[in-house]
C-alpha cells in the first residue's frame, strides 16, 4: 500500500463531455488502485454520451470498505475536469472548500452556444468561481499537450498524468504503465505514455512554482 496519507474513502470525480475519454480514464485509475490492493468503485454516468452530453465518473477508494458507486454531494476530494464549463457544473454539486480541482481550460461549446442562444462563460469567470468553491485549482492544458504529440485523443491520459503528480492520490506513474500495457496495443501505449509524462511534468511544475 502507498505511504501517502489519504482520506478513506477518497472521492474523485472525472468529468467532461462525451467522447473525451472519461470512462477510460476512470477505469485506468481504479484498476491501478485495485492492483495495489485498494477497494475501488467507479460510477459512470454516460447515458447518451456519444451524442455530446455531459459525462462524469465517480471513483471511490478505500482500504477496507466497499462503497456505493456515487459520491455524496460536496464530498469530492478531487475533481478532474476535461472541459472548463463541465468542471464548474460538477464543482457546484460536489466540491467543498478542501477540494482540489485540475482542469483543461480548452472549451467544448454546447449546441446552444454554437447556435448563439446561450453564452459560454469566460475562462476567468469559470476559474474565479472554481477558486471560490475549491481549495486548490490547477489548469493543465491537456488537449494542447496531447496535440503537441499529434494525438489529441489522449488529453484524458495527460490529465491522468497530472492527477498522479498530486500527493493525495495513492498511485504512481509506474502503476499506470502496468495497467495501460494490459489495455493498449504497443503503438498506442507508447503514445499514451508520452502524453502521460507531459501531463505529469506539467503538474509537477505547477506544484514546484507554488511551493
Amino acid at each position, binding site marked *: 500500500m502507498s505511504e501517502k496519507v489519504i482520506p478513506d474513502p477518497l472521492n474523485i470525480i472525472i468529468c467532461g463531455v462525451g467522447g473525451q475519454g472519461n470512462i477510460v480514464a476512470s*477505469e485506468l485509475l481504479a484498476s491501478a488502485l485495485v492492483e495495489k490492493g485498494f477497494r475501488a468503485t467507479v460510477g459512470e454516468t454516460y447515458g447518451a454520451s456519444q451524442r455530446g452530453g455531459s459525462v462524469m465518473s465517480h471513483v471511490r477508494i478505500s482500504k477496507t470498505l466497499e462503497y456505493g458507486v456515487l459520491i455524496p454531494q460536496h464530498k469530492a476530494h478531487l475533481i478532474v475536469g476535461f472541459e472548463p464549463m463541465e468542471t464548474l457544473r460538477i464543482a457546484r454539486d460536489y466540491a467543498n472548500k478542501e477540494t482540489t480541482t485540475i482542469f483543461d481550460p480548452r472549451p467544448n461549446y454546447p449546441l446552444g452556444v454554437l447556435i448563439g442562444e446561450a453564452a459560454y462563460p469566460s475562462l476567468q469567470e469559470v476559474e474565479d*468561481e472554481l477558486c471560490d468553491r475549491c481549495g486548490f485549482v490547477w489548469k493543465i492544458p491537456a488537449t494542447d499537450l496531447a496535440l503537441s504529440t499529434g494525438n489529441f485523443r489522449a488529453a484524458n491520459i495527460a490529465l491522468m498524468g497530472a492527477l498522479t503528480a498530486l500527493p493525495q492520490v495513492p498511485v504512481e506513474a509506474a502503476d499506470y504503465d502496468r495497467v495501460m500495457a494490459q489495455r493498449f496495443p504497443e503503438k498506442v501505449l507508447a503514445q499514451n505514455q508520452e502524453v502521460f509524462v507531459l501531463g505529469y511534468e506539467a503538474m509537477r511544475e505547477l506544484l514546484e512554482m507554488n511551493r
Partner: protein
Amino acid sequence: MEWMTTLDSPGKVFLLQGNEAIVRGALEAGIHFAAAYPGSPSSEILTMLGRIADKRGFYAEWSTNETCALEACMGASFAHARSLCIMKQNGLMTVGDALHTCGLSGVKGGLVLVVADDPSAHSSTNEFDSRNMAVSANIPMLEPSTIQDAKDMIPYAFELSEQLQQIVMIRTVTRINHGRSNVVLGELPKSLRPLKAIGEWDRFVGINWFHESQWEKMDQAGEIFEKSPFNTYEGPEKPALLIITSGTGRLYSREALDTLEEGMSVEVFRNHWFHSREALDTPEVRNKIGILSIGTSWPLPERLVLGHAKKAGKILVVEEVDPFLERGVAAILGKEKDFSVEILGKGKNGVLPRVFELDPDRVRNAIAKALGVDAKDEVPAPAPAAGVTARELTFCAGCPHRATFFIVKQALELTETQGVVMGDIGCYTLGAQRAGHYLISFLGCMGAGINAAEGLGQLNRFGFDQPVVAFSGDSTFFHSCLPGLVNARYHNANMLFVILDNSATAMTGFQPHPGIGRTAMGHPAEPVSIQKVVEAIGCPVTTADPYDVEGGIRLVYDLLKQPGLKVLIFQQPCVTAHIRTIEKTKIWVDPELCRGDACGCGRFCSRIWGCPANIWDDANKRAAIDEVVCAGCGVCVSLCPAGAIKMVEKEAV
C-alpha cells in the same frame, strides 16, 4: 475488457464493470447459449460474450429483437442447454407474452433472464420498473446489490432455475451494470455439460394446464429464499428503524449511517443541530438502525421479513423506481393478526421521491426524516456566479442524421403544409430536440412510429391532408418495423417511411444487426438487404445519400407529393462507428472567402446547421472548424453559400 472475465484464476481480484461481472458469472455457470438485443445499460454483456464465445465453446447472438432472443433461449433450454438472455427494461415489455408462456411451461436446461433497468432514464426514454413483470409472469426474481453479487447471482440463478425447472429473472440497474468494483473471481468449469436429446414425450408448452404447478414452483422458491445467502441483515437485534432495501439501496444506506453519525457528532458538539434529539437516546445511529438487504425480491422471503419487522420500531423501504418491495412488505405484514408497524417509503407523502434513481444524499435524507433528525449539510456552498448553460445532446460531428433531418425539414417547408413526423428509438430520437429542428412530434416505443403513421395515413377520408413521415433506423427496422410495413403497404397508407440506414446499432455502441454481415461472434454472415425486403413487401423504394443535401431535399419533396406509401432509404455509415476511414480529410474555413456577419447567411454553418465542429471564431468574426471535433464528412462544404469551407485530403496537406 473481456480478457479479465476469461482468466482461470479463482480467488483473484479484479476491478470489473457490473456487465463484466455478469459475463464472468455466465462463464462460471458454464452457459451454452446467450442471446440478446442491445439496450443501455445492458449492451456490453453480449458484446463481450460474443467476443469470447468461440474461445469458451458456447454460442452467442445478437438476436433481431428481444422476443427472438428469449424464445431462442427457450429452444436451447429444451435441449438442456444453459441459456442466458439479456435485455433492457423496454425489451422486457416487448417479450411479455413469451415470458408469461415460458413461466407456464417451465424450462429444462437453466434459463436466466437478465433485465437491466435504467432508473432516471439516463439512456432510455423511460424508467419502467421491470420487477412488476416478474410478478405478472409469476416467476422468481433476484436483485444484486453489489457488483460481486452481479457475478455470484448468475451461477446461483442457473442452479435455482434447474432446481425449480423455471426461468429465473435477475433485475439489475444502471448503477450496477455501469458501476465498477472489486470482484473476486470464482472457478470456471473445465468443460460444458453435455446436452440431452429431446425425447418423444418431452414437452415444453406454455398452456394453462400448468398454472397450479407454476404456483407450486413459486412456493418452493419462497422456501429456498428464506435461507438465501443474498438476503443479509446487519444491525442491532431490535432496531428502532429497520431499513428494508434491495439493489443499490444497501450500500447507500450503509454509507448514510456513517455520514449521519459524522454530522450528528459534529452537531452534538455544537449543540444545536437536530430538532428532536429526544428521538435518539445517543447520537450513535448505528445502534439504532438495522439494514435488511433483500437479494431475492420475488417471491419475498415472508418469514424472514416478518421476523425482522416484528423486532423493529419502524420500517423504511429503500429501493429504485417503483415501491415494489414496499408493497410486498406491506402485504406480508398486513396479513399478520394484531400486528402493526409504520412503513415509510416512496410516494407523495413518503420520505423518498417516487421517480428517478436513488443516490447517497436522497437515502441519507430519507433516513434522517425517518429518524426525525435534520440531515442538512454542514457547509453551505457559494451561490453560482458564472453562467453555466445546459449541454443538450446533439448528433455527432459528421452524423448523417443531421443531414437527414435538415433535408426533411426543408422539404416539408417546401410543401407549405404542416407535416407530421413520427420518430422511433435510436440516435435519431434526438430529432425531437434542437439537433433535429424539433421535427419529431410523435415518439413511442420501438416500432411505434410506422404504425402511428399508418393510422394517420388512413385519415384522408376525413380531410386530413398533412404529409406524414415516419423514421426508423436500420436496426429498428429489423427489430419491430416489418409487421408495420406490411400493414402500411397492405392498407396503402398515405405516408413516407424514411429508413436511416447507417449500418450500425449506433445508439447502444455499434452492435451488428442482420443488415451488417457480421455476427456477435465475429463470424461473417450473408446480410439481409433492407432494400430487397422492402421491395419484396411490394413498396416503391428509393435510396439516397443524405450527404447530398440538395438532391435529398428535391427527392423528399417529390415523394411527399405522391399519394400512398413511399419508402426512402438514406444510406450513409455512422461516422462514429467508421471514424478511422473518414479522418483522412481535413476541413477548413478560408478566412478570405468567409464574409462573417456581412454574408447574410446568418452564420448558417454554426447557428443553423448545428454541427459541433462548425464553430464561430469570435476574435476574427469568421466561421471556423474545430479540428478536434470535425469528422471530415464535408457536408458543410457543400452548404456554405460563400463557398468558404474547403476540404482537402489529409495526405495531400
